[in-house]
């Protein structure tokens, strides 16, 4: 077992452990803060795959943006501790079946795919990603930004004070 494997195991344990807290904790605030470690763990996995730009973006968007918004939202909720998050209709058998089906399909996809192996890690991904965005994938990139702009305008519309009210 090399150093790389040991580091990966620690990171994987932290990621999965904190993800379990997110799902299982009875207090919303712990769930929200545990997400911090999950997001960081995923970022470290990106680093270990040689995707440095993606890792920084993951931290920037998820920790710097989404997690903070989530925390603000959680703090505005009414009851934070000892929540019963289970839904009224608790269906054990269908739930287990679906979980099992998702797990098997993901596991099969991971083991059966012929992954393209790269011997040497890609030197710098930032430039490649930027070029691909601006040349080959320009249309999806622009469509995504229009979608975000629409969401922004929609949010501004919703919170705007009505002049007649």
């Amino acid at each position, binding site marked *: 077992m090399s150093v790389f494997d040991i580091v990966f195991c620690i990171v994987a344990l932290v990621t999965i452990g904190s993800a379990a807290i997110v799902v299982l904790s009875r207090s919303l605030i712990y769930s929200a803060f545990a997400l911090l470690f999950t997001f960081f763990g995923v970022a470290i996995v990106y680093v270990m795959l040689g995707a440095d730009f993606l890792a920084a973006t993951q931290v*920037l968007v998820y920790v710097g943006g989404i997690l903070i918004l989530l925390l603000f939202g959680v703090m505005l909720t009414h009851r934070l501790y000892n929540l019963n998050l289970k839904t009224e209709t608790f269906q054990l058998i269908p739930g287990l079946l679906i979980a099992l089906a998702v797990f098997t399909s993901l596991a099969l996809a991971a083991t059966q795919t012929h992954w393209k192996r790269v011997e040497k890690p890609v030197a710098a991904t930032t430039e490649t990603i930027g070029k691909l965005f601006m040349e080959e994938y320009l249309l999806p990139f622009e469509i995504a930004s229009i979608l975000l702009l629409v969401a922004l305008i929609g949010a501004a519309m919703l919170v705007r004070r009505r002049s007649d009210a």
Partner: protein
Amino acid sequence: MEALLKLLSDNVAGYGSLASPLQYLLPMVLASLCCIALVALFPIVAVYAERKVAAHMQDRLGPMRVGGWHGWAQTIADGIKLLLKEDIIPSEADRVLFKLAPLVVFAGGFASLVVLPFGASVIVSDLNIGVLYVVAISSLGVVGIIMAGWASNNKYALFGGMRAAAQIVSYEIPAVMAILTVVIPVGSLSTQEIVRAQEGGWLGIGNWFIFKPVTAVAFLVYYLASLAEVNRTPFDIPEAESELVAGYHTEYSGMRFAFFMLAEYVNMFVVSAIGATLFLGGWNSPVFGGPVAFMLKSVALVFVQFWLRWTLPRLRVDQLMYVSWKVLLPASFVLVILAGALAVR
């Protein structure tokens, strides 16, 4: 760190015969020790300097007694006092988050040191996403501040934490846009590449980005936004004493409080050092280059932070948001467009 590894393997007999993980581990440990030394020593000097600067600006003398000459040992004594103080956790506080928060805030500031280019080969790691890394890792501090505010179970702490988070998130956008105006002409996010792009020119300073039209304005935008990101006056409403006691660290004392103070001063240094890297030529200098020039520039920018703090009054919350969203943000968008237009010329 690569330079340190080379130095070790060249000068220490039998270093190459060590196990390969150990060969890499030793420079890592040494580099982190250097960073910890900087993180521990810089606040001691900076707190003393700030008190002296503040005192002289207000026609006072400041600390004069401890240690004899001009009270030089004052902050050392204060530091020891903080270490010896009783560790108090409020009985209604969330103990786990209360203990975790100072560490998260401190880790965010400490981790930024990795990409600061002190000299041509004096850098912990020259990541090719350098500047983006600093922007990303500093968001850790925001989460830590919210955590501290929430865990204290104190309305002033919670208000301070939420204000700090809202402020840092708002000012991050103009700061990043201002950084982009430098990244566009350089074509790289690596801090070393950015410093190398500013070599030479008229009198050895002509290529610094602060002397070029678009980036000169971007420097102002960056510096103002960075003041807000480290909660310094005139943007220090998260810890406005008159209304919030002390903001998110109201309930903290002793060692944990010291961690918040360390993090604050480290962050002040980091934003100044990034400013020096991006706009003031980094370790380039017409007279003597290297770590000395870099430290002088960073410390000069820290001094300006002191200067502003003891000169300007605090902004109101609405004025703060006005400055960010209606002044700095549009200005920084225009700057990015101009920088892009200049780059494709």
